């Protein structure tokens, strides 16, 4: 139904274009050579089309957002009272999802009570009605817009300016989408976290030394209370990120130095695409590589040395994440080094310094802000990286700094807590949002710091 409505709106808008274009074109032809129209016919067409399409589309969007919750609420009111008596919010939600499953034509385990099947039928009927109502509701403002806009079309009507004004608004809305996204992230993370902190105190979350989110699935189950202290999770994140940076920063930095200062242009032309390819490999591939290739190889090697390593150790995840970061650090350092003015190089060489001395004493200090901000961005990526650690690091939180042991990370916990779990109000799922908030804030701080460094020291040598 949504598709049909969208298509109908589109068709109506196309008709609106023609409806506005035709009279303007006629007037233009009639006054051949003279100045009959202020704007070209195209703008008259666009003006009418915009008046048809934009209100209708907005209405459809609002309708789609509101339809689900409204229907659900009405549906609950049709249910017999004893069916709802004494049900918690979560149980009501389960009941609703049963009705939805049934209405979608899937079978439920066991025989559902009669009021559920009835409700499913009602839901199907209502959805149908709502679909038609949406179609009518979308076309009504479209038709009104059509005639209203058509009435305004006259030879002296400044259609171009009007269309450009509309475009102004549309473009501003698109640019503001970035702000809305940030806002959406903050609001959704913040409110879900608030609900989490209503169940688990903030101090326990921030300073608790144990992370054991195994909470009873049902109220009557006897299970551990669960512990939500993020210290071990965060330590694990920092450990893996530190390993990856220790591995990636020297390699990335030295490759950038070689590429900018020593390599011939032909060598550069070969190596650059290789590094770009390395940067374009999806992280799930690196995760698979870590599990299937690096972990067994490293384990066997260390075993030969008499050292035992956990199969999903921090070292493996960190190393592979380091491989992922090499091209990132290399390309950012490359940019920073290449931005150092030639005059500084020539001055240093002219004074008799060797290339290495020029690099160490002149170029690196000059490019330091750029390199530092690149390293900070890399750290932010390492902390937020998900698939490699989901596949290669552990799930159980150990508070350790030993790289040969298994640790878990913030992102691993987010994914494992949320996979396959649809209930929105157990502390388990809410904990994932609290971790997400921490992750967002930490990476935000690193990104802002990196941005500040570049802004502060940019164009120092111009």
């Amino acid at each position, binding site marked *: 139904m949504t598709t049909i409505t969208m298509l109908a709106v589109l068709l109506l808008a196309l008709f609106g274009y023609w409806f506005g274009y035709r009279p303007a074109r006629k007037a233009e032809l009639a006054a051949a050579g003279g100045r009959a129209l202020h704007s070209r016919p195209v703008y008259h067409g666009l003006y009418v089309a915009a008046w048809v399409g934009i209100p209708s589309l907005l209405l459809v969007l609002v309708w789609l*957002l509101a339809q*689900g919750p409204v229907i659900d609420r009405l549906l609950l009111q049709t249910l017999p009272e004893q069916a709802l008596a004494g049900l918690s919010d979560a149980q009501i939600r389960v009941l609703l999802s049963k009705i939805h499953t049934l209405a979608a034509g899937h079978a439920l385990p066991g025989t559902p009570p009669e009021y559920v099947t009835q409700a499913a039928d009602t839901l199907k009927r209502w959805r149908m009605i709502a679909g038609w109502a949406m179609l009518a509701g979308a076309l009504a403002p479209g038709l009104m817009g059509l005639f209203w806009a058509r009435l305004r079309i006259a030879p002296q009507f400044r259609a171009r300016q009007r269309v*450009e004004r509309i*475009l102004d608004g*549309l*473009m501003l809305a*698109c*640019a503001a*989408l*970035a*702000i809305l*996204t940030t806002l*959406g*992230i903050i609001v*959704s*993370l913040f409110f879900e976290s608030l609900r989490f902190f209503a169940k688990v105190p903030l101090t326990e979350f921030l300073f608790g030394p144990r992370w054991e989110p195994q909470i009873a699935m049902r109220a009557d189950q006897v299970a551990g209370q669960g512990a939500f202290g993020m210290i071990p999770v965060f330590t694990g994140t920092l450990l893996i990120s530190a390993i990856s940076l220790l591995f990636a920063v*020297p*390699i990335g930095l*030295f*490759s950038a130095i*070689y590429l900018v200062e*020593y390599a011939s242009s032909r060598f550069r032309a070969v190596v650059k695409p290789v590094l*770009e*390819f*390395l940067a*374009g*490999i*999806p992280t*799930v*591939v*690196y995760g*698979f*590589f870590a*599990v*299937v290739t690096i972990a067994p190889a490293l384990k066997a090697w260390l075993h030969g040395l008499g050292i035992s390593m956990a199969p999903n150790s921090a070292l493996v995840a960190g190393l592979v994440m380091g*491989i992922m970061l*090499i*091209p990132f650090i*290399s390309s950012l350092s490359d940019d920073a080094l290449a931005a150092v003015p030639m005059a500084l190089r020539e001055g240093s060489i002219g004074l008799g310094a060797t290339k*290495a*001395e020029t*690099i*160490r004493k002149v170029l690196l200090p000059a490019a330091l802000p750029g390199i530092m901000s690149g390293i900070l*961005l890399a750290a932010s*990526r390492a902390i937020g*990286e*998900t*698939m490699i650690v989901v596949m290669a690091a552990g799930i159980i939180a150990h508070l350790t700094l030993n790289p040969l042991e298994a640790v878990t990370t913030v*992102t691993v916990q987010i*994914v494992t807590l949320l996979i*396959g779990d649809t209930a929105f109000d157990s502390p388990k799922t809410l904990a*994932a*949002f609290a971790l*997400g908030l921490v*992750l*967002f804030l930490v*990476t*935000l701080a690193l*990104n802002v710091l990196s*941005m500040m460094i570049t802004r502060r020291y940019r164009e120092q040598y111009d």
Partner: protein
Amino acid sequence: MTEPPDSHERIDWTAPQRLTRLRRRHRANRRMQWLGLGAILTAAGLLAVLVLSLLASGLPAFQQSYVTLSFDLKPALVNPQDMRRGKWRKIVRNALFAALPEVKDRRLKRKVFRIVSRAAPYNLRDYVMKHPELVGKTITHQVLLSDPFDQYVKGVIPAHIGAGAQQRFNPRLGGPEVLAAFEKLRRDGRISLRFNRNLFLNADSRLPEQAGLAGAIVGSFLMLLVTFIISFPAGIAAAVYLEEFAPKNRFTDFIEVNINNLAAVPSVVFGLLGLALFIGYAGLPRSTPLVGGMVLSLMTLPTIIIATRAALSAVPPSIREAALGIGASRYQTVLHHVLPVAMPGILTGAIIGMARALGETAPLLLIGMNAFIPDVSGMGISEPATALPTQIYSWADSPERGFVARTSAAILVLLGFLLAMNSTAIWLRQRYGRRTW
């Protein structure tokens, strides 16, 4: 350079201590150069190891082994009225033991039957349902081998494992008698290795020999379609606004800071956003390409905006000035002159953004786009789906040996798509990007 040279005194550059010093400095220079080269070779070597190990484990999965048998399609077994209820397992069983008359023992028969894939009866049924005229005849047809024997044919797993005194028979192959029966089939020329069309035509399956990528490819395609439809126009509009129209004020600054920051927000956070906002609040259907595409379009938007802005600012001002000078409005200037010139750069950025979206996994896991899709026919924008990277993740988690090869093959397919997209972007950049003005 410790003692300042006296202008009247000539420095003796050939003095031994000066020469040693010079040699040391040159050594340091060479050391730096070797370090740099070593770093690059390390990176390239790691890439080579990655690609080679993927090729080594993934290439066998592009071939699939089959066994050719003669199936007696007796109407009593086929059940022509309702073929779905036919005794296909029995037909396959009869065909296999017609080819292996020496296998008599019931228990051995049960083991030997595992040579053939559990999917074989269904594949035979589908084939006969498509050609109903075959009922009642005896046909020669190829059916899938089960995963262990497929691996054995390709030489991925050996007949014996362990070494020396500890050498024992590979338990996955069922025992020496089963292997003897298999070798008999091979001697009769019934075992063949063909290009694995199933990998591209089948959707997911619990059986490695039957599983394919069609569902994942369709899911990824639908998702990218949604991403493109949202992020391409919105990204261009935002970039044009910021680059050509926006007043220099705090609001514009704020938008720019937001865009730059969004480009560096971890992808899993976008997944949380999608889960809380699109699924939890707006009630959009879980696991669907619609939600996946919407989440990814928010992620791709900064990439497209940044690339488009770079492309727009590379358009020389003379073009704008010429258009404005002959009386075009600012919109006409941008839409008729600046945007067409910047289009190759914009498309390059869009393709790179799409390639990144194609490889993104974590947000899709959070919104549940790793559904088990055994059939492509029911897929749609708002139906549960899976995508290539999430399919890789699910296969990587599967314990069956055949899925290791399948996973590597799926990665090779994904990398192939990415390589194609990136090459298109590079080609566009080189074909249209290097104009001189």
